[in-house]
């Protein structure tokens, strides 16, 4: 497309003239424009190619080697690292934790975010303030949020203790309990995500044509039916965007996790993200770390592709 456009712009034979000085001048101008284009994009492309694309190639290669990050030679081992991982019960455990973590956070924050958006879409006094404040956690440092919630979850002096006391229970020792650490982490990420998702949904809600609601009101459909038949389908492109970005983000979630649980206790919160970090920078096992990263990459590509197909089908019915 672009190539055709460019040629049309140059219009080599458009006016049927021969190479007059004027045309040669135009050529020179185009050449100068091309060079300027290159000069303008080179810095950005240099960094993107060096620090985003090249690493994919290098990482793929590393995943086929065995290397302790010190030895001068990397041993080529073929697919051994992948075989190791998929036959290692610990790694399968990591994948299980990752699924619970990602599904919990994506589904949870989508549901909460949509509910908040519907609430804040009503004419209520103070909704602007609440909307702004609920967005704030999205841009705060994950390390800071992790630290705040460590204190909130403190079983003796944290905020959760009175909440549990209200129903006559003791607060669990969240971050040192293999049962509670993962749910605790998920709660923190829900708190961090829900306001952002609500804000995006609110923008989507304002784009739903009013006539649809008026028609539904004339038909006498109730609030829930209206939501199910009109609001939710009309929001499907927004939902698609949010599910993808939240999924990609959650797979890589690191900072809150690093601060609160560091993958523990035991391996109860070791997600794929933590596993890769740990293999590379604690165990200095480049091969397995790279293989883990490739697995994450492929999973994310598959999820995105599946959702893209799903969306295509959805959008036709709009």
């Amino acid at each position: 497309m672009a190539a055709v456009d460019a040629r049309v712009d140059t219009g080599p034979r458009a006016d049927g003239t021969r190479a007059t000085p004027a045309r040669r001048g135009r050529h020179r101008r185009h050449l100068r424009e091309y060079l300027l284009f290159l000069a303008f994009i080179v810095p950005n492309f240099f960094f993107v190619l060096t620090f985003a694309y090249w690493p994919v190639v290098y990482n793929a290669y590393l995943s086929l080697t065995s290397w302790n990050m010190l030895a001068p030679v990397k041993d080529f081992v073929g697919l051994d690292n992948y075989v190791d991982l998929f036959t290692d019960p610990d790694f399968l455990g990591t994948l299980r934790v990752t699924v619970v973590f990602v599904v919990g956070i994506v589904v949870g924050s989508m549901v909460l975010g949509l509910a908040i958006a519907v609430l804040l879409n009503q004419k209520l006094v103070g909704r602007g303030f609440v909307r702004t404040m609920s967005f704030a956690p999205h841009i705060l440092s994950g390390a800071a949020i992790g630290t705040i919630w460590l204190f909130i979850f403190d079983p003796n002096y944290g905020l959760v203790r009175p909440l549990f006391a209200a129903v006559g229970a003791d607060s669990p020792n969240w971050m040192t309990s293999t049962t509670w650490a993962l749910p605790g982490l998920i709660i923190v990420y829900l708190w961090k995500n829900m306001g952002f998702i609500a804000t995006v949904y609110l923008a989507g809600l304002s784009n739903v044509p009013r006539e649809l609601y008026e028609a539904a009101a004339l038909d006498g459909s109730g609030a829930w039916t209206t939501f199910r038949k009109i609001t939710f389908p009309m929001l499907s492109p927004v939902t698609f965007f949010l599910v993808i970005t939240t999924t990609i983000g959650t797979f890589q979630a690191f900072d809150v996790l690093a601060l609160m649980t560091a993958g523990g206790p035991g391996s109860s919160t070791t997600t794929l993200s933590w596993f890769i970090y740990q293999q590379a920078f604690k165990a200095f096992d480049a091969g397995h770390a790279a293989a883990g990263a490739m697995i994450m990459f492929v999973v994310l590509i598959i999820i995105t592709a599946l959702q893209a197909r799903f969306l295509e089908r959805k959008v036709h019915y709009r």
Partner: protein
Amino acid sequence: MTTSTVDSPLRTRSPRGRAGRVLRYVLLVVLACVVLGPLYWLASSALKQNADIYTYPPTWIPTHLRWSNFVDAWHAAPFGRFFLNSLIVTSIGTVGEMLCATLCAYAFAFLRFPFKKVLFGVLLGAMMVPGHVTLLPNYLTISDLGWINTYPGLIVPGLGSVFATFLLRQHMLTLPGEIMDAAKVDGAGHLRTMFRVVLPLSRPMLVTAGVITMVGKWNDFIWPLIVTNSTTMRTVPIGLLFLKTQEGYNNWGAIMAATVLVVVPVLVVFFFAQRQIVAGLTQGATKG
């Protein structure tokens, strides 16, 4: 709304409507508490003395403001140095990335080039590469350059820009063509057009992209964590991890004070540029 009073279900509307209204306000208050509770807890705990922290039930209002928590935090870890590092990395990194992004966006918006769309696709494709795939190779690259524990090591890998370039290009494409034509007729070269016409008209989007970039760099955690290992080169978010391992859970006041120091700059920026940040971060969704 209540035109068809003949319908029997609609007659019950008024009392139910009032109950619904009350319910909605209750939910709004609950939401406000959930969102603000942790932030208030942070701010108040940073000023509490130990007697107010290590007590049950929790004290909501500090009985005595203990500002020395900040002094404690400052002494427990070299936070002054962490701050300086964060400032340097964030400011130079943001300026550098915005330069790359602006030039690139201008080229894609206004200059002719064969296969331009393909090239733009290549750029956008980089968004699909998860950071975790680049972690180890980038660490090795930086280490080969001898840049571990240096500012270039912290800054350079983050200079490439996809999101900001995308935002800026989309904005530049919306600028009215007549203005560009007028500039051309004037005989203005592209450099002049860029600085005199396009950039001034793109100010709001430059602010949006710049602020989002800045916040991302300030909060960045995993890259500074792996590319530095000496205390003097750590940034503020890593400082929190450092402090946690140093102080454990024995000095929540100081830890909360340090957390306030990490959060406040971002909250201040958010307070002033709230509309731009929200618009920029939500744009991808609504424009499809």
